[in-house]
Protein backbone atom coordinates (compact mmCIF):
# COMPACT_ATOMS: atom_id res chain seq x y z
CA UNK A 1 0.00 0.00 0.00
CA UNK A 2 1.38 3.38 -0.98
CA UNK A 3 1.21 6.11 1.65
CA UNK A 4 0.66 9.34 -0.23
CA UNK A 5 2.74 12.19 1.23
CA UNK A 6 1.05 14.98 3.17
CA UNK A 7 0.56 17.95 0.88
CA UNK A 8 0.86 21.60 2.06
CA UNK A 9 -2.28 22.85 0.42
CA UNK A 10 -1.74 26.45 1.48
CA UNK A 11 1.51 26.51 -0.45
CA UNK A 12 -0.32 25.27 -3.51
CA UNK A 13 -3.41 27.41 -3.01
CA UNK A 14 -2.43 30.33 -5.26
CA UNK A 15 -1.78 27.92 -8.11
CA UNK A 16 -4.93 25.98 -7.41
CA UNK A 17 -7.06 29.11 -7.34
CA UNK A 18 -5.85 29.96 -10.81
CA UNK A 19 -6.36 26.42 -12.03
CA UNK A 20 -9.90 26.63 -10.72
CA UNK A 21 -10.41 29.76 -12.76
CA UNK A 22 -9.10 27.96 -15.80
CA UNK A 23 -11.44 25.08 -15.27
CA UNK A 24 -14.51 27.23 -14.60
CA UNK A 25 -13.97 29.53 -17.54
CA UNK A 26 -13.38 26.53 -19.74
CA UNK A 27 -16.67 25.06 -18.63
CA UNK A 28 -18.24 28.46 -19.07
CA UNK A 29 -17.11 28.50 -22.65
CA UNK A 30 -19.17 25.42 -23.16
CA UNK A 31 -22.29 25.95 -21.05
CA UNK A 32 -22.71 29.70 -20.60
CA UNK A 33 -24.61 31.35 -23.47
CA UNK A 34 -22.35 33.28 -25.83
CA UNK A 35 -24.01 36.56 -24.95
CA UNK A 36 -22.82 36.43 -21.35
CA UNK A 37 -19.69 34.37 -21.92
CA UNK A 38 -17.37 37.35 -21.76
CA UNK A 39 -18.90 38.89 -18.65
CA UNK A 40 -18.84 35.50 -16.95
CA UNK A 41 -15.21 34.79 -17.75
CA UNK A 42 -14.08 38.28 -16.80
CA UNK A 43 -15.82 38.17 -13.46
CA UNK A 44 -14.58 34.68 -12.67
CA UNK A 45 -11.04 35.52 -13.72
CA UNK A 46 -10.98 38.71 -11.68
CA UNK A 47 -12.29 36.85 -8.64
CA UNK A 48 -9.84 34.03 -9.17
CA UNK A 49 -6.78 36.20 -9.70
CA UNK A 50 -7.75 38.29 -6.69
CA UNK A 51 -8.17 35.19 -4.56
CA UNK A 52 -4.87 33.84 -5.73
CA UNK A 53 -3.20 37.14 -4.87
CA UNK A 54 -4.75 37.12 -1.42
CA UNK A 55 -3.75 33.53 -0.82
CA UNK A 56 -0.24 34.34 -1.97
CA UNK A 57 -0.29 37.18 0.51
CA UNK A 58 -1.27 34.77 3.25
CA UNK A 59 1.51 32.44 2.22
CA UNK A 60 3.93 35.34 2.31
CA UNK A 61 2.75 36.22 5.76
CA UNK A 62 2.79 32.67 7.11
CA UNK A 63 6.12 31.44 5.80
CA UNK A 64 9.03 33.44 7.13
CA UNK A 65 11.08 30.26 6.89
CA UNK A 66 11.42 28.42 3.61
CA UNK A 67 10.06 24.87 3.65
CA UNK A 68 10.02 22.12 1.05
CA UNK A 69 6.70 20.81 -0.23
CA UNK A 70 6.47 17.12 -1.16
CA UNK A 71 10.17 16.27 -0.95
CA UNK A 72 11.73 19.11 -2.83
CA UNK A 73 9.07 19.38 -5.49
CA UNK A 74 8.49 23.02 -4.65
CA UNK A 75 9.53 25.46 -2.00
CA UNK A 76 7.08 27.36 0.10
CA UNK A 77 8.77 30.67 0.79
CA UNK A 78 8.28 34.39 0.55
CA UNK A 79 10.17 34.67 -2.69
CA UNK A 80 7.67 32.45 -4.43
CA UNK A 81 4.80 34.21 -2.72
CA UNK A 82 6.14 37.59 -3.80
CA UNK A 83 6.34 36.42 -7.40
CA UNK A 84 2.85 34.95 -7.11
CA UNK A 85 1.42 38.25 -5.92
CA UNK A 86 3.16 40.08 -8.73
CA UNK A 87 1.93 37.62 -11.36
CA UNK A 88 -1.61 37.63 -10.01
CA UNK A 89 -1.63 41.42 -9.99
CA UNK A 90 -0.44 41.51 -13.58
CA UNK A 91 -3.10 38.95 -14.36
CA UNK A 92 -5.82 41.16 -12.92
CA UNK A 93 -4.61 44.12 -14.94
CA UNK A 94 -4.46 42.06 -18.11
CA UNK A 95 -7.97 40.74 -17.55
CA UNK A 96 -9.22 44.31 -17.10
CA UNK A 97 -7.53 45.31 -20.33
CA UNK A 98 -8.76 42.26 -22.19
CA UNK A 99 -12.37 42.81 -21.19
CA UNK A 100 -12.72 45.47 -23.85
CA UNK A 101 -11.01 43.71 -26.74
CA UNK A 102 -13.31 42.87 -29.61
CA UNK A 103 -12.53 39.15 -29.31
CA UNK A 104 -15.22 37.30 -31.25
CA UNK A 105 -14.11 33.73 -30.66
CA UNK A 106 -12.40 31.60 -28.01
CA UNK A 107 -13.46 34.03 -25.31
CA UNK A 108 -13.73 31.49 -22.55
CA UNK A 109 -10.65 29.64 -23.72
CA UNK A 110 -8.67 32.87 -23.73
CA UNK A 111 -9.30 33.50 -20.06
CA UNK A 112 -8.82 29.86 -19.24
CA UNK A 113 -5.43 29.78 -20.90
CA UNK A 114 -4.50 33.08 -19.27
CA UNK A 115 -5.30 31.62 -15.86
CA UNK A 116 -3.53 28.36 -16.70
CA UNK A 117 -0.42 30.21 -17.80
CA UNK A 118 -0.45 32.31 -14.64
CA UNK A 119 -0.86 29.17 -12.57
CA UNK A 120 2.13 27.70 -14.33
CA UNK A 121 4.22 30.77 -13.69
CA UNK A 122 3.26 30.91 -10.04
CA UNK A 123 4.32 27.31 -9.65
CA UNK A 124 7.41 27.82 -11.77
CA UNK A 125 8.56 30.68 -9.54
CA UNK A 126 8.66 28.38 -6.54
CA UNK A 127 9.73 25.15 -8.22
CA UNK A 128 12.38 23.36 -6.22
CA UNK A 129 13.71 20.67 -8.49
CA UNK A 130 14.69 20.36 -12.10
CA UNK A 131 11.72 18.24 -13.02
CA UNK A 132 9.04 20.51 -11.61
CA UNK A 133 10.92 23.46 -13.01
CA UNK A 134 10.94 21.98 -16.49
CA UNK A 135 7.35 20.85 -16.33
CA UNK A 136 6.08 24.16 -14.98
CA UNK A 137 8.03 25.91 -17.68
CA UNK A 138 6.36 23.82 -20.34
CA UNK A 139 3.08 24.33 -18.58
CA UNK A 140 3.00 28.07 -18.99
CA UNK A 141 4.99 28.05 -22.22
CA UNK A 142 2.47 25.86 -23.98
CA UNK A 143 -0.36 28.00 -22.70
CA UNK A 144 1.44 31.04 -24.06
CA UNK A 145 2.09 29.41 -27.44
CA UNK A 146 -1.60 28.92 -27.77
CA UNK A 147 -2.43 32.40 -26.54
CA UNK A 148 -0.04 33.97 -29.04
CA UNK A 149 -1.64 32.13 -31.90
CA UNK A 150 -5.15 32.56 -30.56
CA UNK A 151 -6.17 35.11 -33.19
CA UNK A 152 -6.10 32.44 -35.83
CA UNK A 153 -7.61 34.87 -38.31
CA UNK A 154 -4.55 37.12 -38.11
CA UNK A 155 -1.50 36.03 -40.06
CA UNK A 156 0.86 37.75 -37.62
CA UNK A 157 -0.70 35.97 -34.70
CA UNK A 158 -0.13 32.56 -36.27
CA UNK A 159 3.37 33.48 -37.30
CA UNK A 160 4.17 34.66 -33.79
CA UNK A 161 2.67 31.49 -32.37
CA UNK A 162 4.70 29.18 -34.55
CA UNK A 163 7.92 31.10 -34.04
CA UNK A 164 7.41 31.10 -30.31
CA UNK A 165 6.52 27.43 -30.31
CA UNK A 166 9.51 26.29 -32.31
CA UNK A 167 12.17 28.50 -30.77
CA UNK A 168 10.59 27.98 -27.36
CA UNK A 169 10.61 24.23 -27.65
CA UNK A 170 14.14 24.41 -28.95
CA UNK A 171 15.07 26.39 -25.88
CA UNK A 172 13.33 24.02 -23.52
CA UNK A 173 14.97 21.13 -25.32
CA UNK A 174 18.35 22.60 -24.52
CA UNK A 175 17.25 23.37 -21.00
CA UNK A 176 16.15 19.78 -20.66
CA UNK A 177 19.42 18.41 -21.89
CA UNK A 178 21.13 20.69 -19.43
CA UNK A 179 18.98 19.28 -16.66
CA UNK A 180 19.96 15.80 -17.76
CA UNK A 181 23.63 16.65 -17.61
CA UNK A 182 23.34 18.24 -14.19
CA UNK A 183 21.42 15.23 -13.03
CA UNK A 184 24.12 13.08 -14.45
CA UNK A 185 26.80 15.00 -12.65
CA UNK A 186 25.13 15.00 -9.27
CA UNK A 187 22.52 12.30 -9.35
CA UNK A 188 20.13 14.80 -7.81
CA UNK A 189 17.17 16.77 -9.11
CA UNK A 190 16.40 19.03 -6.14
CA UNK A 191 18.12 22.40 -6.12
CA UNK A 192 19.23 22.13 -2.53
CA UNK A 193 20.56 18.59 -3.00
CA UNK A 194 22.40 19.68 -6.11
CA UNK A 195 24.18 22.28 -4.01
CA UNK A 196 25.05 19.61 -1.45
CA UNK A 197 26.25 17.15 -4.08
CA UNK A 198 29.93 17.03 -4.91
CA UNK A 199 31.56 17.67 -8.26
CA UNK A 200 31.43 21.41 -8.51
CA UNK A 201 33.99 21.56 -11.31
CA UNK A 202 32.65 18.45 -13.03
CA UNK A 203 32.59 19.20 -16.79
CA UNK A 204 29.15 17.60 -17.08
CA UNK A 205 27.92 19.86 -14.35
CA UNK A 206 29.12 23.16 -15.81
CA UNK A 207 27.93 22.14 -19.27
CA UNK A 208 24.52 21.41 -17.90
CA UNK A 209 24.58 24.65 -15.97
CA UNK A 210 25.41 26.55 -19.13
CA UNK A 211 22.49 24.94 -20.96
CA UNK A 212 20.09 25.62 -18.11
CA UNK A 213 21.26 29.21 -17.97
CA UNK A 214 20.69 29.49 -21.70
CA UNK A 215 17.21 28.06 -21.43
CA UNK A 216 16.27 30.50 -18.67
CA UNK A 217 17.92 33.43 -20.44
CA UNK A 218 15.65 32.54 -23.32
CA UNK A 219 12.59 32.97 -21.14
CA UNK A 220 14.00 36.17 -19.70
CA UNK A 221 14.62 37.16 -23.33
CA UNK A 222 18.14 38.28 -22.66
CA UNK A 223 20.41 38.83 -25.64
CA UNK A 224 21.52 36.83 -27.55
CA UNK A 225 18.60 34.55 -26.69
CA UNK A 226 16.15 37.38 -27.27
CA UNK A 227 15.58 37.20 -30.98
CA UNK A 228 12.13 35.67 -30.74
CA UNK A 229 10.94 38.46 -28.44
CA UNK A 230 10.24 41.29 -30.90
CA UNK A 231 8.50 39.10 -33.41
CA UNK A 232 6.34 37.34 -30.86
CA UNK A 233 5.52 40.51 -28.91
CA UNK A 234 4.52 42.24 -32.09
CA UNK A 235 2.46 39.43 -33.52
CA UNK A 236 0.68 38.22 -30.42
CA UNK A 237 -2.58 39.81 -29.30
CA UNK A 238 -1.59 42.99 -27.43
CA UNK A 239 -3.10 41.85 -24.16
CA UNK A 240 -1.13 38.62 -24.35
CA UNK A 241 2.00 40.59 -25.10
CA UNK A 242 1.39 42.69 -22.03
CA UNK A 243 1.02 39.54 -19.98
CA UNK A 244 4.14 37.95 -21.39
CA UNK A 245 6.26 41.05 -21.07
CA UNK A 246 5.38 41.49 -17.43
CA UNK A 247 4.53 38.14 -15.88
CA UNK A 248 6.80 35.80 -17.83
CA UNK A 249 9.80 37.98 -17.19
CA UNK A 250 9.00 38.23 -13.51
CA UNK A 251 8.57 34.49 -13.09
CA UNK A 252 11.60 33.61 -15.18
CA UNK A 253 13.85 36.09 -13.38
CA UNK A 254 12.73 35.00 -9.96
CA UNK A 255 13.43 31.40 -10.82
CA UNK A 256 16.76 32.27 -12.40
CA UNK A 257 17.72 33.99 -9.19
CA UNK A 258 16.45 31.06 -7.16
CA UNK A 259 18.21 28.32 -9.06
CA UNK A 260 21.48 30.17 -9.44
CA UNK A 261 21.61 30.99 -5.78
CA UNK A 262 20.25 27.76 -4.34
CA UNK A 263 21.64 25.20 -6.76
CA UNK A 264 24.81 26.73 -8.19
CA UNK A 265 26.29 28.94 -5.47
CA UNK A 266 29.56 27.04 -5.66
CA UNK A 267 30.08 28.08 -9.25
CA UNK A 268 29.12 31.70 -8.78
CA UNK A 269 32.44 33.08 -9.95
CA UNK A 270 31.58 31.45 -13.27
CA UNK A 271 27.95 32.38 -13.72
CA UNK A 272 28.15 35.92 -12.33
CA UNK A 273 30.47 36.77 -15.20
CA UNK A 274 28.21 35.01 -17.67
CA UNK A 275 25.14 36.81 -16.38
CA UNK A 276 26.96 40.12 -16.46
CA UNK A 277 27.94 39.53 -20.08
CA UNK A 278 24.37 38.59 -20.98
CA UNK A 279 23.21 41.75 -19.21
CA UNK A 280 25.59 43.96 -21.16
CA UNK A 281 24.64 42.30 -24.42
CA UNK A 282 20.95 42.82 -23.66
CA UNK A 283 21.51 46.45 -22.77
CA UNK A 284 23.43 47.21 -25.93
CA UNK A 285 21.34 45.24 -28.40
CA UNK A 286 17.99 46.00 -26.83
CA UNK A 287 18.53 49.73 -26.66
CA UNK A 288 20.16 50.08 -30.04
CA UNK A 289 17.55 48.06 -31.88
CA UNK A 290 14.73 49.85 -30.09
CA UNK A 291 15.88 53.18 -31.49
CA UNK A 292 15.23 51.95 -35.01
CA UNK A 293 11.68 50.79 -34.31
CA UNK A 294 8.52 52.42 -35.56
CA UNK A 295 5.97 49.89 -34.37
CA UNK A 296 5.24 50.56 -30.74
CA UNK A 297 4.77 46.96 -29.64
CA UNK A 298 8.07 46.06 -31.23
CA UNK A 299 9.73 49.04 -29.60
CA UNK A 300 8.45 47.98 -26.22
CA UNK A 301 9.64 44.46 -26.93
CA UNK A 302 13.18 45.67 -27.43
CA UNK A 303 12.88 47.88 -24.40
CA UNK A 304 11.88 44.79 -22.43
CA UNK A 305 15.09 43.17 -23.68
CA UNK A 306 17.10 46.08 -22.34
CA UNK A 307 15.23 45.84 -19.04
CA UNK A 308 16.17 42.18 -18.90
CA UNK A 309 19.69 43.53 -19.03
CA UNK A 310 19.16 45.77 -16.02
CA UNK A 311 17.50 42.98 -14.09
CA UNK A 312 20.30 40.57 -14.88
CA UNK A 313 22.74 43.13 -13.53
CA UNK A 314 20.91 42.78 -10.24
CA UNK A 315 21.35 39.01 -10.40
CA UNK A 316 25.00 39.34 -11.35
CA UNK A 317 25.52 41.33 -8.16
CA UNK A 318 25.01 37.96 -6.44
CA UNK A 319 24.20 39.46 -3.07
CA UNK A 320 21.10 40.03 -0.97
CA UNK A 321 20.88 43.65 -2.11
CA UNK A 322 20.92 42.45 -5.68
CA UNK A 323 18.03 40.12 -5.05
CA UNK A 324 16.10 42.81 -3.24
CA UNK A 325 16.82 45.26 -6.03
CA UNK A 326 15.61 42.72 -8.57
CA UNK A 327 12.31 42.20 -6.81
CA UNK A 328 11.78 45.91 -6.23
CA UNK A 329 12.67 46.74 -9.82
CA UNK A 330 10.08 44.23 -11.02
CA UNK A 331 7.24 46.17 -9.37
CA UNK A 332 7.43 49.43 -11.34
CA UNK A 333 8.64 47.53 -14.37
CA UNK A 334 5.58 45.31 -14.48
CA UNK A 335 3.27 48.22 -13.79
CA UNK A 336 4.76 50.40 -16.48
CA UNK A 337 4.87 47.58 -19.02
CA UNK A 338 1.28 46.50 -18.52
CA UNK A 339 0.17 50.13 -18.51
CA UNK A 340 2.05 50.95 -21.68
CA UNK A 341 0.63 47.97 -23.52
CA UNK A 342 -2.81 48.87 -22.23
CA UNK A 343 -2.49 52.30 -23.84
CA UNK A 344 -1.26 50.66 -27.03
CA UNK A 345 -4.26 48.34 -26.94
CA UNK A 346 -6.61 51.28 -26.51
CA UNK A 347 -5.11 53.09 -29.48
CA UNK A 348 -5.13 49.89 -31.50
CA UNK A 349 -8.83 49.41 -30.91
CA UNK A 350 -9.46 53.03 -31.80
CA UNK A 351 -7.59 52.94 -35.11
CA UNK A 352 -8.20 49.26 -35.87
CA UNK A 353 -4.62 48.93 -37.09
CA UNK A 354 -1.18 48.36 -35.59
CA UNK A 355 0.08 51.30 -33.55
CA UNK A 356 3.17 52.98 -34.92
CA UNK A 357 4.81 56.07 -33.52
CA UNK A 358 3.22 58.18 -36.22
CA UNK A 359 -0.19 56.73 -35.45
CA UNK A 360 0.34 57.64 -31.81
CA UNK A 361 0.54 61.33 -32.69
CA UNK A 362 -1.79 63.52 -30.76
CA UNK A 363 -3.01 60.82 -28.40
CA UNK A 364 -1.78 63.00 -25.57
CA UNK A 365 -4.20 65.73 -26.54
CA UNK A 366 -7.12 63.54 -27.62
CA UNK A 367 -7.04 61.23 -24.59
CA UNK A 368 -5.37 63.34 -21.87
CA UNK A 369 -5.54 60.59 -19.27
CA UNK A 370 -4.03 57.89 -21.42
CA UNK A 371 -1.50 60.39 -22.70
CA UNK A 372 -0.27 61.43 -19.29
CA UNK A 373 -0.26 57.83 -18.14
CA UNK A 374 1.78 56.72 -21.16
CA UNK A 375 4.14 59.64 -20.56
CA UNK A 376 4.83 58.51 -17.02
CA UNK A 377 5.21 54.88 -18.04
CA UNK A 378 7.87 55.92 -20.51
CA UNK A 379 9.58 58.05 -17.89
CA UNK A 380 9.52 55.14 -15.49
CA UNK A 381 11.07 52.82 -18.03
CA UNK A 382 13.67 55.45 -18.81
CA UNK A 383 14.39 55.69 -15.11
CA UNK A 384 13.36 59.26 -14.56
CA UNK A 385 12.84 60.41 -11.00
CA UNK A 386 9.34 60.61 -9.53
CA UNK A 387 8.82 57.10 -10.88
CA UNK A 388 9.70 53.74 -9.37
CA UNK A 389 11.82 53.04 -12.41
CA UNK A 390 14.37 55.53 -11.16
CA UNK A 391 14.75 54.01 -7.73
CA UNK A 392 14.78 50.56 -9.29
CA UNK A 393 17.76 51.43 -11.44
CA UNK A 394 19.38 53.28 -8.56
CA UNK A 395 18.96 50.25 -6.31
CA UNK A 396 20.27 47.85 -8.91
CA UNK A 397 23.30 50.01 -9.59
CA UNK A 398 24.02 50.42 -5.91
CA UNK A 399 23.81 46.68 -5.39
CA UNK A 400 26.17 45.87 -8.21
CA UNK A 401 28.48 48.69 -7.15
CA UNK A 402 28.64 47.18 -3.71
CA UNK A 403 29.53 43.91 -5.39
CA UNK A 404 32.47 45.87 -6.76
CA UNK A 405 31.45 45.95 -10.41
CA UNK A 406 31.66 49.68 -11.04
CA UNK A 407 32.00 49.18 -14.77
CA UNK A 408 28.56 47.58 -14.87
CA UNK A 409 27.22 50.76 -13.30
CA UNK A 410 28.86 52.85 -15.97
CA UNK A 411 27.54 50.66 -18.77
CA UNK A 412 24.09 50.68 -17.23
CA UNK A 413 24.16 54.45 -17.01
CA UNK A 414 25.24 54.84 -20.61
CA UNK A 415 22.56 52.37 -21.69
CA UNK A 416 20.02 54.50 -19.86
CA UNK A 417 21.18 57.54 -21.75
CA UNK A 418 20.82 55.60 -24.98
CA UNK A 419 17.34 54.42 -24.05
CA UNK A 420 16.13 57.99 -23.67
CA UNK A 421 16.40 58.33 -27.41
CA UNK A 422 13.35 56.16 -27.97
CA UNK A 423 11.38 56.65 -24.76
CA UNK A 424 11.39 60.40 -25.29
CA UNK A 425 10.54 59.71 -28.89
CA UNK A 426 7.32 58.13 -27.72
CA UNK A 427 6.51 61.12 -25.55
CA UNK A 428 7.28 63.35 -28.48
CA UNK A 429 4.85 61.38 -30.60
CA UNK A 430 2.23 61.74 -27.88
CA UNK A 431 2.40 65.50 -27.64
CA UNK A 432 4.46 67.10 -30.35
CA UNK A 433 3.97 67.31 -34.03
CA UNK A 434 6.36 68.80 -36.48
CA UNK A 435 3.26 70.59 -37.74
CA UNK A 436 0.89 72.86 -35.85
CA UNK A 437 -0.13 72.17 -32.27
CA UNK A 438 -3.37 70.24 -31.98
CA UNK A 439 -5.26 68.52 -34.76
CA UNK A 440 -6.13 64.82 -34.58
CA UNK A 441 -5.25 61.62 -36.35
CA UNK A 442 -8.37 60.34 -38.03
CA UNK A 443 -9.58 57.33 -36.06
CA UNK A 444 -10.08 54.61 -38.66
CA UNK A 445 -12.28 52.43 -36.48
CA UNK A 446 -13.97 55.50 -35.08
CA UNK A 447 -13.07 55.96 -31.44
CA UNK A 448 -14.93 53.39 -29.37
CA UNK A 449 -16.77 54.39 -26.19
CA UNK A 450 -14.10 54.91 -23.54
CA UNK A 451 -13.29 51.60 -21.93
CA UNK A 452 -13.73 52.02 -18.20
CA UNK A 453 -12.06 48.77 -17.18
CA UNK A 454 -9.03 49.53 -19.30
CA UNK A 455 -8.80 53.01 -17.82
CA UNK A 456 -8.99 51.44 -14.37
CA UNK A 457 -6.13 49.14 -15.22
CA UNK A 458 -4.08 52.06 -16.54
CA UNK A 459 -4.90 54.09 -13.45
CA UNK A 460 -3.74 51.26 -11.18
CA UNK A 461 -0.56 50.87 -13.21
CA UNK A 462 0.02 54.60 -12.94
CA UNK A 463 -0.54 54.58 -9.20
CA UNK A 464 1.92 51.74 -8.76
CA UNK A 465 4.47 53.31 -11.09
CA UNK A 466 4.51 56.58 -9.18
CA UNK A 467 3.59 55.18 -5.78
CA UNK A 468 6.52 52.82 -5.82
CA UNK A 469 8.70 55.92 -5.90
CA UNK A 470 7.30 57.57 -2.82
CA UNK A 471 6.60 54.42 -0.83
CA UNK A 472 9.84 52.75 -1.75
CA UNK A 473 10.87 51.66 1.72
CA UNK A 474 7.86 49.46 2.57
CA UNK A 475 8.13 47.73 -0.79
CA UNK A 476 11.84 47.23 -0.33
CA UNK A 477 11.19 45.76 3.09
CA UNK A 478 8.86 43.21 1.50
CA UNK A 479 11.43 42.40 -1.15
CA UNK A 480 14.08 42.12 1.55
CA UNK A 481 11.95 39.61 3.46
CA UNK A 482 11.28 37.69 0.27
CA UNK A 483 14.98 37.43 -0.51
CA UNK A 484 15.78 36.49 3.07
CA UNK A 485 14.70 32.92 2.31
CA UNK A 486 17.52 32.57 -0.22
CA UNK A 487 20.89 31.27 1.02
CA UNK A 488 23.00 34.35 0.28
Amino acid at each position, binding site marked *: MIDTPSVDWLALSPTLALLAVAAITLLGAVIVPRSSERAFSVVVSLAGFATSAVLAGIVFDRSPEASAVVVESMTRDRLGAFAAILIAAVGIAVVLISAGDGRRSHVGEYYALLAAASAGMVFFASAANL*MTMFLALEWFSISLYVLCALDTHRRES*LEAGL*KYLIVGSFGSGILLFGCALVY*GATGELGFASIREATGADDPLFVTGMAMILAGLAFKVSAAPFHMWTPDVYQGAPTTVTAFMAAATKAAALVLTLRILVTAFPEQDEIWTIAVAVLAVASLVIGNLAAIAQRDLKRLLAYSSVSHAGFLLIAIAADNADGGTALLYYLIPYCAATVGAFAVVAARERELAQPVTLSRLEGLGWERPFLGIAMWWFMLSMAGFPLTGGFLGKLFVFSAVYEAGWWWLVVIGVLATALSLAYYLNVVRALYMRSGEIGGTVVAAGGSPPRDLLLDTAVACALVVTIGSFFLVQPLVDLARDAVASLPF
Partner: protein
Amino acid sequence: MMGPDVPWYLAIAAILFSIGVAGVLLRRSPLIVLLSLEIMLNSANLAFVGFSRLFGEMDGQVFALAVMAVAASEVCVGLGLIVAMARRNLALDVDSLTELRG
Protein backbone atom coordinates in the same frame (compact mmCIF):
# COMPACT_ATOMS: atom_id res chain seq x y z
CA MET B 1 25.64 -4.38 -15.96
CA MET B 2 25.59 -6.30 -19.16
CA GLY B 3 26.42 -4.75 -22.46
CA PRO B 4 28.06 -1.34 -22.88
CA ASP B 5 28.26 0.90 -19.87
CA VAL B 6 26.61 4.27 -19.43
CA PRO B 7 28.95 6.56 -21.40
CA TRP B 8 27.98 4.71 -24.57
CA TYR B 9 24.37 5.61 -23.97
CA LEU B 10 25.31 9.14 -23.35
CA ALA B 11 27.31 9.26 -26.53
CA ILE B 12 24.27 8.16 -28.48
CA ALA B 13 22.22 10.73 -26.63
CA ALA B 14 24.66 13.49 -27.50
CA ILE B 15 24.71 12.47 -31.16
CA LEU B 16 20.94 12.33 -31.32
CA PHE B 17 20.74 15.70 -29.63
CA SER B 18 22.89 17.40 -32.19
CA ILE B 19 21.07 15.64 -34.99
CA GLY B 20 17.88 17.14 -33.65
CA VAL B 21 19.50 20.54 -33.40
CA ALA B 22 20.75 20.29 -36.94
CA GLY B 23 17.26 19.39 -38.06
CA VAL B 24 15.75 22.42 -36.45
CA LEU B 25 18.43 24.63 -37.90
CA LEU B 26 18.25 23.23 -41.40
CA ARG B 27 14.74 22.19 -42.32
CA ARG B 28 12.11 24.58 -43.55
CA SER B 29 9.04 22.43 -43.16
CA PRO B 30 7.54 23.14 -39.76
CA LEU B 31 6.44 19.52 -39.55
CA ILE B 32 9.94 18.21 -39.85
CA VAL B 33 11.17 20.87 -37.46
CA LEU B 34 8.68 19.51 -34.98
CA LEU B 35 10.00 16.02 -35.54
CA SER B 36 13.54 17.26 -34.98
CA LEU B 37 12.42 18.79 -31.72
CA GLU B 38 11.06 15.40 -30.75
CA ILE B 39 14.47 13.93 -31.40
CA MET B 40 16.09 16.51 -29.14
CA LEU B 41 13.71 15.69 -26.32
CA ASN B 42 14.23 12.00 -26.79
CA SER B 43 17.98 12.36 -26.66
CA ALA B 44 17.55 14.01 -23.31
CA ASN B 45 15.35 11.13 -22.28
CA LEU B 46 18.00 8.66 -23.24
CA ALA B 47 20.50 10.57 -21.15
CA PHE B 48 18.09 10.54 -18.24
CA VAL B 49 17.50 6.85 -18.47
CA GLY B 50 21.17 6.22 -18.73
CA PHE B 51 21.97 8.33 -15.73
CA SER B 52 19.22 6.86 -13.66
CA ARG B 53 20.70 3.49 -14.43
CA LEU B 54 24.05 4.87 -13.40
CA PHE B 55 22.86 6.00 -10.02
CA GLY B 56 20.35 3.28 -9.58
CA GLU B 57 17.85 6.02 -8.84
CA MET B 58 14.60 6.04 -10.76
CA ASP B 59 14.11 9.83 -10.73
CA GLY B 60 15.65 9.95 -14.16
CA GLN B 61 13.17 7.50 -15.57
CA VAL B 62 10.32 9.40 -14.01
CA PHE B 63 11.64 12.54 -15.60
CA ALA B 64 11.88 10.78 -18.94
CA LEU B 65 8.30 9.66 -18.66
CA ALA B 66 7.18 13.20 -17.86
CA VAL B 67 9.14 14.48 -20.80
CA MET B 68 7.29 12.12 -23.10
CA ALA B 69 4.05 13.71 -21.99
CA VAL B 70 5.48 17.15 -22.55
CA ALA B 71 6.74 16.17 -25.98
CA ALA B 72 3.31 14.87 -26.80
CA SER B 73 1.76 18.17 -25.73
CA GLU B 74 4.17 20.18 -27.82
CA VAL B 75 3.40 18.07 -30.83
CA CYS B 76 -0.29 18.49 -30.18
CA VAL B 77 -0.13 22.25 -30.04
CA GLY B 78 2.35 22.41 -32.88
CA LEU B 79 0.17 20.32 -35.14
CA GLY B 80 -2.81 22.42 -34.20
CA LEU B 81 -0.94 25.49 -35.24
CA ILE B 82 0.18 23.98 -38.49
CA VAL B 83 -3.35 22.96 -39.28
CA ALA B 84 -4.58 26.44 -38.53
CA MET B 85 -1.95 27.90 -40.81
CA ALA B 86 -2.83 25.50 -43.54
CA ARG B 87 -6.44 26.54 -43.08
CA ARG B 88 -5.42 30.16 -43.59
CA ASN B 89 -3.54 29.05 -46.71
CA LEU B 90 -0.20 30.11 -45.31
CA ALA B 91 2.81 28.41 -46.90
CA LEU B 92 4.06 25.66 -44.60
CA ASP B 93 7.60 27.01 -44.74
CA VAL B 94 9.29 28.64 -41.81
CA ASP B 95 11.33 30.83 -44.14
CA SER B 96 8.17 32.39 -45.47
CA LEU B 97 7.23 33.58 -41.99
CA THR B 98 8.93 36.97 -42.28
CA GLU B 99 5.96 39.25 -41.80
CA LEU B 100 7.47 40.16 -38.44
CA ARG B 101 11.05 41.33 -38.68
CA GLY B 102 13.43 44.24 -38.19
